[in-house]
């Protein structure tokens, strides 16, 4: 029983970060319909910004987080303006190839600048964990969970409760109509991609200090983000959050009670099962056909 409780706590802290990864991608992949292969690189980018600001410039850890989010926003906006805007209207394969190219170029660039050896970032939290009866959890991970929850809430409100969010949803449902209603479509494209990118960078910035930072760290994160988005249903923020927690639960219980050798496989087995029974994901709206 104690072990089970600990697994549940682990699931919560892991799920929070998976959810954060998922919502960033669901905005871009789900709403904008761009198969964003740079999501993992932006995650890595956020982690390296933390490394630069905290370890190299010696600045405050909590100051570094918004810096990483802002840097992710700017890099995302730059990618949209230089790569995606000229390709708008071209077929999905072309965009996908360009994004794969951007992924490889940026990852190699990171490797070129920083080398392949992992870096770590010191976080200003006590080393002794918080112990609550049979379970214990590190303060850093609790902070990450709280920060992830806050970012998820802000994103949810932004998309569902603000006029920018309404304009975003309108644009990707019907670009021409949105444009006729006075929506600046170009601005919406850039800001949606930038917001999704800043969420990826935020996830990297939060998780970099938990784990270690290296150029390929985003690859597995990106695979998981895609899985979460597909699991939850494309473009659905609630779906991405629930998907993140389901994936974390499957990994924890799979590793804890089935076999740790298949930990990463567990999540994907669940996804296969969901896709067999609900091919559009758990939370997808009924799609309009035609």
């Amino acid at each position, binding site marked *: 029983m*104690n*072990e089970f409780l*600990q*697994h549940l706590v*682990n699931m919560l802290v*892991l799920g929070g970060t998976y959810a954060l990864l998922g919502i960033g991608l669901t905005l871009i992949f789900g709403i904008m319909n761009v198969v964003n292969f740079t999501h993992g690189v932006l995650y890595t980018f956020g982690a390296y910004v933390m490394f630069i600001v905290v370890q190299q410039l010696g600045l405050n850890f909590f100051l570094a987080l918004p810096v990483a989010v802002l840097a992710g926003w700017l890099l995302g906006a730059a990618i949209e303006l230089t790569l995606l805007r000229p390709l708008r209207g071209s077929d999905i394969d072309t965009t996908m190839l360009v994004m794969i190219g951007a992924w490889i170029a940026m990852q190699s660039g990171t*490797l070129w600048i920083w*080398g*392949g*050896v*992992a870096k*770590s970032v010191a976080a200003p939290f006590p*080393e*002794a*964990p918080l*112990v609550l009866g049979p379970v*214990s*959890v*590190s303060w850093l*991970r609790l902070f990450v969970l709280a920060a992830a929850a806050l970012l998820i809430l802000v994103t949810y409100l932004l998309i569902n409760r603000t006029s920018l969010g309404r304009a975003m949803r309108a644009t990707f449902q019907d670009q021409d109509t949105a444009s006729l209603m006075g929506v600046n479509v170009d601005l919406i494209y850039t800001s949606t991609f930038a917001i999704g990118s800043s969420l990826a960078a935020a996830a990297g910035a939060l998780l970099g200090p938990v*784990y*270690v930072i*290296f*150029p*390929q*760290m985003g690859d*597995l994160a990106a695979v998981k983000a895609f899985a979460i988005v597909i699991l939850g249903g494309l473009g659905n923020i609630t779906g991405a959050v629930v998907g993140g927690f389901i994936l974390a639960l499957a*990994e*924890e219980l*799979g*590793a*804890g009670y089935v076999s*740790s*050798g298949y*930990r*990463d496989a567990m999540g994907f087995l669940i996804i296969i099962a969901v896709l067999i029974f609900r091919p559009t994901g758990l939370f997808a709206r009924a799609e309009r056909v035609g």
Partner: protein
Amino acid sequence: MTRALGLVPAMAVATALFGGAAAAQTIKIGVNEPLTGAFAASGTYVVNGAKIAADEINAKGGILGKKIELVIEDNKSNPTEAAAVAEKLITSDKVPVLMGAWGSSLTLAVMPKLMEYETAMVVETSSSGKITTTGNPFIFRISPPSAVEAAAFKGIVDKLALKKVDFLVINNDWGRGTAEDFSKMMKDKGIGIGLVETMDQGAQDMSAQLSKIKSSDSETVIVTTAVDQLTLIFKQAAALGLKKRIITTGGSQNPDQIIAQAGAAANGTMHLTTFLPWFPDKTPNPEATNYFISEWKKRGFEFAGCTESFRGYDGIRTAAAAIEKAGKAEPAAIKAAFWDIDVKGLNGDIVFRKSGPEGKESGQSQPNVYLIEINDGKVAMKAL
């Protein structure tokens, strides 16, 4: 047009001549190491150690009157890449001997290529037993197989009063091989074997495995993986309040890096290692050890890397000794010469003994194994 075409063979001949002449001025040694991916830190240390050996040899005039040249390639911590790199080094760079490939799964992937091209390789780090028992006569290993580590550890299990142990090992030939060899030794000693948990080589979150181990009835955990993952394990074990004794194996722990990155979480942990840079006077060849450590520091590398990099240093010196003994930089002669060398390695004399099926034995030297303990952020030696 005809004349232009006629130029092509002439150019090919010229390239072959000049190319051949250029190649003959140095003796190449292929280095196949993970410089990116999960084992980037370890592979980079080994390569830096290898460069110290090459520079030292060249400063003394090289071998057979020629300088040695390291051709270094990145196998990306990926077995498929490791095999491709070996093929590239042998066929395109024409190296007569190799060193590599750090991880057991990487080395095992390279081994068929060595058979195919009949080129020998010094195995500097890998510890899976399979490497020297499957009958590959082109393998010369200077690192201890996990059975040798287990045998060295046998003497101390009584002193540590082990009753039941769990394993947390990297899910590849190295980790699984270690769990197998150590379990066998411990069962013979009447020690109970509990959980055998694995983790993917790129995994960053081991909380699930550690939570399971926390709830088991064992008092000790044997952990086998490289330094980056070890650091994460110590941090995550501390966060989960795991109070068991942790002993690591494999010699790729870089204890100083663990102390620096895992802090207090590293205290009380024990590590089976194959080099003692903290106590140069206790190593088999103190003079060589002191030279290596001073050169390592002079180059501005972190001291933590010494426990890994010395293998690259010894590996290149081993390959160079074989080339010198062979009297020529040809694969077959070098392979034969490995059996006749005696190198003063930093971890004992490197002399190859036969291992594996008769007629196609691999070479295996008998390096020392030590147990160290981290106390109050410092490394202390435990008597084995």
